[in-house]
């Protein structure tokens, strides 16, 4: 029989022998599959409802903005006018109308010169000069001076009855910034009355919550890690409420102790290659399987961990099976087995976060103290695992099956200590918790969390 024929006969033997061969699949696998399918369905619903909630929040915010900025200004103007009309004695109406016209014309001329701010004091003075003897009119001009463009709108509407034009002017954002007096009236025309830019950063304490049968064992080998977070927020405030949107770079991390890392020689010959050999090349933990970036690196758990994963086998302290010394492909008795390090790993997950936070200020004087809550959209930027070798953090691989997108909830406090009229020092203890499991496809659910005290600067514009 020629070599080719021999080869074909071997192929045929296996092809035909295995063609219809089947074995009992492992038990409980269906339950796992069913769990995955249910989880996926849940995720799908979650994504749908999250998008729906975000859309609704946007629509509601825009509606409130519209109501406060457009609708209300229109109705405030009309209401003021009616009140003023009612308060004026009939016999004085003719004089009042004349004075309105004068003040309105003056406003228009000053606005067209781009000197709107100044116009208020000037116009107030002018009005006062012209109408000292008319109490009702004094009230009206004072009100006009306080509410900015609405005064102009009202004056215009009185003058020419062009209310539509006036409200359009108001809604288009023409607004006087330097107005003394009644802030509440001013706030009624905008959905926010103050705006800040905040920069903050913090070292954060990062860990995870594990839900699953292996949680106890994983808790024994995994530890929290200290990482950092930094970013910017744009903050809009009105009365005691503030809402913020921003962009943060945040690193989440988990530390794994009792790990063996081996730099195996490249000229490995697998004299006793066995199917058990490869399992030592990667390491499974709560967030997924850590795979080395190079085929010459071996990562393994210590004896305790391996003994848990394979309770029917015996292991040496470095996690190698006692009866299978060469299973790593390395002859430990040889002169060059490669360096072996007993160390710890740190899995680092870098996220770009888009936070949407809401804040209520309990104290709002010069010093501000508020409660914050919100949601983060987290986009995974990178996922790297480091080993501490000779005191240095050395990149050795990455974790598989990490979700590229996650959602986290935020809860915290915000304290702003004024440094000057526009600058405040921020102190913000903040807790974040990932609502979705970090991994996909594992039997354990792992939700990272972190807490830290952010410090930074807040600038008012």
């Amino acid at each position, binding site marked *: 029989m020629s070599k080719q024929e021999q080869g074909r006969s071997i192929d045929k033997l296996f*092809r035909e022998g295995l063609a219809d061969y089947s074995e009992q699949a492992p038990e409980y696998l269906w339950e796992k599959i069913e769990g995955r399918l249910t989880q996926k369905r849940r995720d799908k619903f979650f994504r749908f409802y999250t998008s729906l909630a975000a859309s609704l929040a946007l629509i509601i915010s825009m509606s409130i903005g519209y109501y406060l900025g457009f609708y209300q200004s229109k109705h405030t103007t009309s209401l003021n006018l009616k009140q003023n009309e009612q308060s004026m004695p009939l016999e004085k109406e003719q004089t009042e109308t004349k004075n309105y016209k004068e003040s309105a014309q003056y406003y228009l001329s000053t606005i067209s010169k781009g000197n709107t701010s100044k116009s208020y004091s000037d116009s107030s003075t002018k009005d006062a000069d012209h109408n000292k003897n008319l109490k009702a009119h004094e009230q009206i001009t004072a009100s006009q001076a306080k509410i900015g463009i609405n005064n102009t709108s009202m004056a215009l509407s009185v003058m020419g009855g062009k209310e539509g034009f006036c409200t359009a002017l108001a809604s288009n954002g023409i607004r006087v910034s330097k107005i003394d007096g009644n802030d509440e009236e001013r706030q009624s025309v905008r959905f926010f009355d103050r705006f800040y830019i905040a920069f903050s950063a913090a070292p954060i304490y990062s860990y995870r919550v594990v839900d699953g049968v292996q949680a106890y064992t994983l808790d024994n080998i995994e530890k929290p890690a200290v990482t950092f977070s930094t970013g910017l927020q744009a903050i809009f405030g009105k009365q005691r409420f503030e809402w913020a949107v921003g962009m943060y770079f945040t690193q989440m991390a988990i530390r794994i102790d009792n790990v063996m890392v081996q730099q195996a020689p490249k000229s490995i010959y697998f004299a006793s290659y066995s199917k058990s050999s490869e399992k030592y090349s990667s390491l499974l933990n709560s967030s997924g399987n850590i795979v080395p970036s190079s085929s010459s690196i071996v990562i393994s758990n210590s004896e305790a961990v391996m003994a848990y994963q394979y309770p029917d086998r015996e292991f040496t302290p470095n996690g190698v099976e006692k009866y299978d010394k060469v299973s790593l492909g390395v002859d430990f008795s040889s002169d060059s087995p490669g360096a072996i390090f007993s160390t710890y790993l740190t899995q680092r997950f870098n996220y770009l976060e888009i936070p949407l936070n809401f804040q209520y200020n309990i104290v709002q004087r010069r010093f501000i103290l508020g409660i914050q809550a919100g949601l983060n959209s987290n986009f995974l930027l990178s996922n790297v695992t480091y080993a501490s070798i000779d005191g240095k953090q050395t990149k050795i691989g990455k974790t598989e099956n990490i979700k590229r997108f996650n959602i986290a909830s935020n809860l915290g406090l915000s304290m702003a200590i004024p440094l000057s009229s526009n600058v405040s020092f921020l102190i913000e203890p903040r807790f974040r918790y990932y609502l979705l499991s970090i991994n996909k496809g594992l039997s354990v659910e792992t939700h990272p969390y972190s807490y830290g005290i952010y410090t930074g600067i807040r600038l008012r514009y």
Partner: protein
Amino acid sequence: MSESIQDIINKCLKGDRASQEKLYREYAGKMWVVCRRYARDTEQAKDILQEGFVVIFEKIHQFKGKGSFEGWMRRIFINLALAEYRKKKLFFFDSNELPLQHDELDDEVFEDDDIQLTGAELLELIASLPTQYRMVFNLYAIEEMSHKEIANMLGISEGTSKSNLFRAREWLRKKIAEKSQFKYRSKERTLKM
């Protein structure tokens, strides 16, 4: 009367969980063997089987009825196993670095007439192959792919695919010989003592 596979598939298309379970029970055994053939160990085979069925239930609408459903499923499992292999391409050695020992094979004559190995034994033998040999042997001998296709799928050269197949057969032949359930005879070698 039991439901036809097509009926079960139709219900799976609507996301019916009971039908998904029926489909799983129907094919899990065969697909488990496919996963075992490609996986490095039973743990990985379990992962592939689990992932494969999740993919199948999610993508079942993509099965257009051309060819057998079993073949379509098998393809998914093989693709997943290959993806796993490409991700964890660890510790395989490049056979080009190792001299092929043709003379060893020349001395052996393999006759398959009386070989009686069970499916379990054959599976065990394939599973014992080194990773890259196992991949090439599965794809060539069982899935009947060409070396060119295999080379593309595994990211190796055709020559490497051929030499891996050669080595895989050699490996299997030796393992079969160890089992002593077939005719195996070695020619007397004239060795210089």
